[in-house]
């Protein structure tokens, strides 16, 4: 079973890349239809492969790095991510078929992007994974800068490619460090790194693929880039691409570095994961662009996944394989769940951007009635985002919290206190995400429209609607049957931590300890349904049904005047207003927020101004100094440039004389 699956998926890579070339010379729809079919087939193959036991398979291609061959491989780990990628890709491709999904210029890069991600997953040697990863960066860059006539998009593109360059070089360096005895994964596994090499690999992986995944402090590129891309592309970037980066992290840290790594390896992951989770969730509360909110929440979710990975890494080192399995299961389940519901949410955002003419929350409102299907899909996605039971977001967060509870067994008092802080921070992040979800849905979908375009909003076209429907069904199923998804992840768990979730995950529910009580989403859903039916029955029996319309009471403000067709917009809470308490309380701590008030003196007619200023700590404390250093270095280099001929000659002669002195000294010794 496994050999043919790999062959099919490998040819899918080839097909997708070829499709990109073909699309460049034909109509855009060709690329999207092709991507849809290939991804659909790939999803089926991946599912069958995972259900069939996920036997590892290998395939050698006759071309690759400088005359050598390329190895492709498929196992339970990559199979799981392939499934996610193919599902997300199918949905995004389907949504792209809508006339307003994309500018047509993106069409050739779209299948290439999918193909590059698939190649990264199927890579069986160091070069293939690097090539796939970099090609993925390049293709997504092309997709991001499609609407390049806008200055903000170009700025986002510059930032994006810079971070991609850092990620790429770090990844290459990490793999170069690993592949001292050959570039195939088998050879690397046979010689896992030790000592400082292992530590450097860890650092490079966190900086490289970590930044691609959106881990703090290298996350600053993510919100503008994901916001700039067309809807289906952002869906893929947030839903799938960040997960590919997570896959690379897992592949390198868990698989290729071997199980013999020390316990402290988990700590950097925990720290960065927690920072990403809290910062991402907080920024999701502050941004006013729908897509930027979603992108920030991606940072948060990647943080959650990384915390799971960190616990798993530490637990594996401490020989707590049950805990490692739980944490890794939580991370993988969250990867799948987030991958799908974030794809769904970005498709909604794309539909809103076209249908309501803006993605700024201050110009939206009341869309649930005008775009019912998009609105309902976004409600479902929002529930997942907030981690409300029994949605897909809750099960994985439940497992994650359970694994953090278990993590106190990892070490002494110091580590326990770290775990304790981690637990509080994790809860804070999850709560912040809930707040952000309420804000997003409440401002964009509910209330009164805030602009004329929002009044005239139109529902998304049929392809997008079908894509949303499909994703919604999958997300719903994951929420109700997390155990089934964990069943698909079983081969990955076996391969990564030599453990399983037997007795802890079944079709009905999940639990932290084998055969103990845990979380049964189906039961919760059933109870909710029974309660709802019961309430309905009671109301039928005892209450007066039906209702009467009227202007909002609003403590006596009454109906708006006729010349304000949707009420006075300013009396409705805005996105900024909603998060004001949070900004005021957490802003100074997390994003160095400052407020300056300019109050004119009495008699002065100029308006009073209140300015809020905030900056991401990563850009403030990391990127700004680095940029300043870079500018300083460039200044130094520039000074070398506009010298007179005489001065240049002096430099040259100095170099020669230094060499001569070097030789003279060498001779004297």
């Amino acid at each position, binding site marked *: 079973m496994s050999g043919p699956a790999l062959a099919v998926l490998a040819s899918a890579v080839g097909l997708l890349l070829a499709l990109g070339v073909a699309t460049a010379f034909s109509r855009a729809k060709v690329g999207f239809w092709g991507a849809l079919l290939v991804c659909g087939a790939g999803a089926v193959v991946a599912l069958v492969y995972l259900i069939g036991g996920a036997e590892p398979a290998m395939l050698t291609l006759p071309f690759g790095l400088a005359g050598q061959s390329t190895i492709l491989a498929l196992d339970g780990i990559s199979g799981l991510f392939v499934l996610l990628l193919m599902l997300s890709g199918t949905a995004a491709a389907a949504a792209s078929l809508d006339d307003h999904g994309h500018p047509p210029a993106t069409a050739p890069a779209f299948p290439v992007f999918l193909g590059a991600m698939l190649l990264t997953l199927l890579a069986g040697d160091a070069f293939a994974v690097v090539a796939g990863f970099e090609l993925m960066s390049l293709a997504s860059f092309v997709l991001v800068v499609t609407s390049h006539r806008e200055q903000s998009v170009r700025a986002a593109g510059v930032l994006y490619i810079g971070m991609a360059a850092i990620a790429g070089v770090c990844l290459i360096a990490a793999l170069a460090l690993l592949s001292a005895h050959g570039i195939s994964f088998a050879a690397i596994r046979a010689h896992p790194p030790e000592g400082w090499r292992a530590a450097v690999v860890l650092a490079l992986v966190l900086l490289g693929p970590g930044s691609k995944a959106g881990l703090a402090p290298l996350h600053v590129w993510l919100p503008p880039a994901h916001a700039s891309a067309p809807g289906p592309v952002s869906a893929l970037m947030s839903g799938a691409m960040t997960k590919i980066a997570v896959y690379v992290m897992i592949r390198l840290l868990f698989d290729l570095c071997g199980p013999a790594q020390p316990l402290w390896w988990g700590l950097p992951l925990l720290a960065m994961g927690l920072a990403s989770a809290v910062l991402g969730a907080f920024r999701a509360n502050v941004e006013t662009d729908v897509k930027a909110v979603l992108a920030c929440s991606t940072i948060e979710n990647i943080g959650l996944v990384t915390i799971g990975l960190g616990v798993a890494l530490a637990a594996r080192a401490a020989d707590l394989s049950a805990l490692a399995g739980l944490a890794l299961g939580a991370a993988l389940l969250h990867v799948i769940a987030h991958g799908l519901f974030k794809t769904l949410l970005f498709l909604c955002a794309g539909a809103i951007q076209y249908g309501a003419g803006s993605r700024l929350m201050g110009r939206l409102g009341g869309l649930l009635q005008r775009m019912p299907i998009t609105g309902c899909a976004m409600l479902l996605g929002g529930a997942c985002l907030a981690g409300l039971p029994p949605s897909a977001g809750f099960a994985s967060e439940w497992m994650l919290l359970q694994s953090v509870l278990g993590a106190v067994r990892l070490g002494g008092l110091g580590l326990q206190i770290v775990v304790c802080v981690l637990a509080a921070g994790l809860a804070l992040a999850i709560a912040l995400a809930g707040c952000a979800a309420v804000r997003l849905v409440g401002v964009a979908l*509910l209330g009164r429209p805030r602009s004329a375009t929002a009044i005239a909003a139109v529902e998304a076209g049929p392809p997008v609607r079908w894509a949303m429907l499909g994703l919604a069904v999958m997300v719903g199923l994951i929420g109700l049957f997390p155990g089934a998804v964990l069943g698909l992840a079983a081969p990955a768990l076996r391969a990564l931590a030599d453990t399983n979730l037997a007795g802890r995950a079944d079709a009905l*529910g999940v639990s932290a300890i084998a055969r103990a009580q845990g979380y049964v989403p189906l039961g*919760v859903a059933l109870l909710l349904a029974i309660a709802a039916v019961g309430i309905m029955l009671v109301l039928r029996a005892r209450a007066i049904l039906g209702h009467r319309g*009227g202007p909002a009471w609003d403590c006596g403000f009454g109906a708006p005047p006729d010349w304000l067709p949707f009420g006075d917009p300013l009396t409705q809470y805005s996105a900024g207003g*909603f998060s004001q308490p949070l900004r005021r309380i957490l802003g100074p701590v997390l994003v160095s927020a400052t407020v300056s008030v300019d109050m004119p003196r009495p008699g002065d007619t100029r308006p009073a101004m209140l300015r809020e200023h905030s900056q991401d700590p990563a850009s403030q404390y990391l990127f700004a100094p680095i940029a300043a250093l870079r500018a300083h270095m460039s200044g130094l280099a520039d000074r070398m440039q506009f010298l007179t001929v005489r001065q240049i000659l002096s430099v040259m002669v100095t170099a020669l004389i230094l060499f001569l002195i070097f030789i003279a000294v060498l001779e004297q010794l």
Partner: protein
Amino acid sequence: MSSVAGLLALLLHLALVLAGAPLLLGLLRLIKARMVGRAGPPVLQPWRDLLRLMRKQPVVADGTSWLFRSAPAVALAATCTAAALVPSFALGMTTAPVGDLLVIGGLLALGRAVLALAAMDSGTAFGGIGASREMTFSVFAEPVFFLIVFTLALITGSTNLDTASSVVNAGVGLRISMALGLVATTTLAIAECGRVPVDNPASHLELTMVHEAMVLEYSGRHLAMIEFTAALKLLLWMSVIAVLFCPFGIAPHDGPGATLAPWLWLLGIAAWAAKMVLLAVALAVFETIQAKMRVFRVPELLGMALLLGLLAVIFLFVSQGFAQGAP
């Protein structure tokens, strides 16, 4: 305990809880009134209010969506589900394996989120202000909640209320962590239920409202459901405190003679009722002597609770360290 007994216990529990929630509220109001020298409404007054509200036709604000109309039912359903997961007089209800404290927290968050969304849907400034404040408080309440869960899970080895409660009942000794946890839980319960000093449910000044501001636009049966939800939530939190910190008297689920034992149940019901009354008295006293806080002071209060929770966990670690070092 057999499945039949579990089901029976569940049904009895639900009946008690659903009937008792407005009564508890009534009792609370009565005690408060008496403490400030008023006669106060009868204990049954909340029930009467609810029935009266159900007989009025609701007025729904123009421009609201279906979400506005269905939110009260969803919030109530979520709270009912959570209530079904918190044991009152007996352990081992059918619903016990379905979820643990985290699930209960999630269900309460669901109810809160739905009501906040409904408030936003009304498109008024007060809806927004209420939703914003409610969600902000929840941000600070959640870490406290999780640290409490953390403490309990470390002491009892489980996050499941049934298991935890039976472990506590079996005796874990008098622990400083439990005491700190109790204080933190109480603070959290006050914040979650919107009681003084976090919020004043009897407030008539819109600008100071939190929870009440969210539901300003509701009337008729919708309002009845929301009121009922609030009452249920109060009872639920009190039950959580009771079942975790003073579980004595509760009917065990897995004794050697794990059969239907009516006298144990009766004992459990009595103990539970007594605990509820005691807690209501304590709450009434507390609310009477406290003034409502400024909105921006609330995170400080919750921050204190968070620190207490942290202290609880740290003391636990320390004592575990002693325990490991002693033998």
